[in-house]
């Protein structure tokens, strides 16, 4: 389908004004929101992710592609919640206490949303208590934590501990990530999953929830 290809290209090339306009045109031609999402937007961001990983894309190219994806998502989101069945799962995400890096976390959140999950983004510098409160309030399937500083990695352990103390640890899965976070660290702190990048984070999420 040519229009889907055009949307995909607009996202990959970061043409954010066109990605919105093309999405509207696709809707007018009675393509469904999920056809646009799964046939254009998600494959586009997957490709961007691969290009970034292979050093074919530089960071600003990823960020502007994300912006292009967002301007399409803004249009689709209200329609998706009307027409689609329930979201595939719910995720509470945040950057841990003491840490204000959010570029990577935002990319992960966006990819999760694109993949059809409901995302509750708590922002940056999120305390263990704040995570606990959000779990009590939203009953997510997964708590996802991001950290970019070696000094804030211990806050991931503290958050998992706080979930235990609140008696919530068995009700959710936990996933951690961020540049300094490794699989062995995830095992050490008792997280259920670790993902090195945003595409892997989505894959892990699907694996855990078996969707």
């Amino acid at each position, binding site marked *: 389908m040519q229009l889907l290809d055009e949307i995909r290209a607009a996202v990959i090339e970061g043409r954010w004004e066109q990605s919105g306009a093309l999405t509207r045109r696709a809707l007018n031609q009675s393509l469904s929101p999920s056809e646009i999402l799964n046939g254009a937007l998600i494959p586009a961001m997957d490709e961007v992710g691969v290009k970034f990983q292979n050093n074919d894309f*530089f*960071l*600003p190219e990823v960020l502007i592609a994300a912006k292009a994806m967002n301007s399409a998502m803004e249009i689709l989101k209200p329609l998706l919640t009307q027409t689609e069945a329930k979201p595939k799962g719910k995720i509470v995400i945040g950057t841990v206490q003491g840490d*204000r890096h959010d*570029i990577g976390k935002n990319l992960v959140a966006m990819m999760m949303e694109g993949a059809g999950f409901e995302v509750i983004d708590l922002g*940056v510098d999120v305390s263990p208590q704040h995570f606990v409160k959000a779990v009590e309030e939203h009953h997510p399937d997964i708590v996802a934590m991001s950290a970019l500083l*070696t*000094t804030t990695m*211990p806050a991931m352990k503290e958050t998992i501990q706080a979930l235990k103390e609140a008696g919530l640890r068995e009700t959710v899965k936990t996933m951690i990530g961020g540049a*300094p976070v490794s699989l062995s660290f995830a095992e050490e702190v008792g997280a259920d999953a670790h993902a090195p990048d945003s595409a892997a984070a989505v894959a892990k999420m699907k694996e855990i929830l078996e969707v």
Partner: protein
Amino acid sequence: MIIIGERINSSRKVIAEAVKNRDAVFLANEAKEQEAAGADMIDLNVGTFVGQEPELMGWLVEIVQDVVSVPLCIDTPSADTIESALEKCKSMVVVNSITGETERYSSFLPLIRKYGSSVIALCMDDRGLSRSPEVRCEIGLSLIEQLTKAGVPYENIYIDPVVEPISCGPNTGRVCLDSIRLIRSQEPEVHIICGLRNVSYGLPKRALLDESFLSMAVLMGLDTVILNPLNKRLMAGLRAARALVGSDEYCMDYIAAYRKGKLEC
């Protein structure tokens, strides 16, 4: 211009290896080379060693201070690490860095006073890092006021407006440059410092961006910089920038560098 050599940082693989293997000879050599290339201070950072940072920093200080005659710059957000380093330092040392964040400020200040060290102060506080040059300037000025009131001599204070990668957000380079300009207009004598390398993160041909940004920052009033002094092109570019903006009287430093072959790159 005050130059702080950035090379001993464990986020570089060779340094992480050397620290892991306790390779004192290699690390001492890294320090000596930087001093020889013109570093006025040597930065030390072992932040990637979670849990071992205080012990390793103390160890590193002892190695490096024996082989160079310039001050060391203890690069960490951890008060324990600062303390362990300051205990071992025999002479002048710079704490890198304090911020206006309540917790960091109150845990670092007693150590800075106790050991009479100099300090790099980042223009951020409990509100985080502002996108507004006016706010960054205001935080910088308030840090100067607080620190001097607490007895830290004015000339021991280095204000850092914080360099963000231009790849990570709109206008980040400009915001930093404008912050330098504003602080300089209010405080003609204070040291203003930048960690240069961050500016080019996420982009190709980083050296090109580093060099251009450095000359712009010098124009705005930067007088101290953290960089790789073994990068000849960067050092030559810095001399050219200083001559061009009038910070190098009669271009004497530029000419002397030429005679010593230091402008070849």
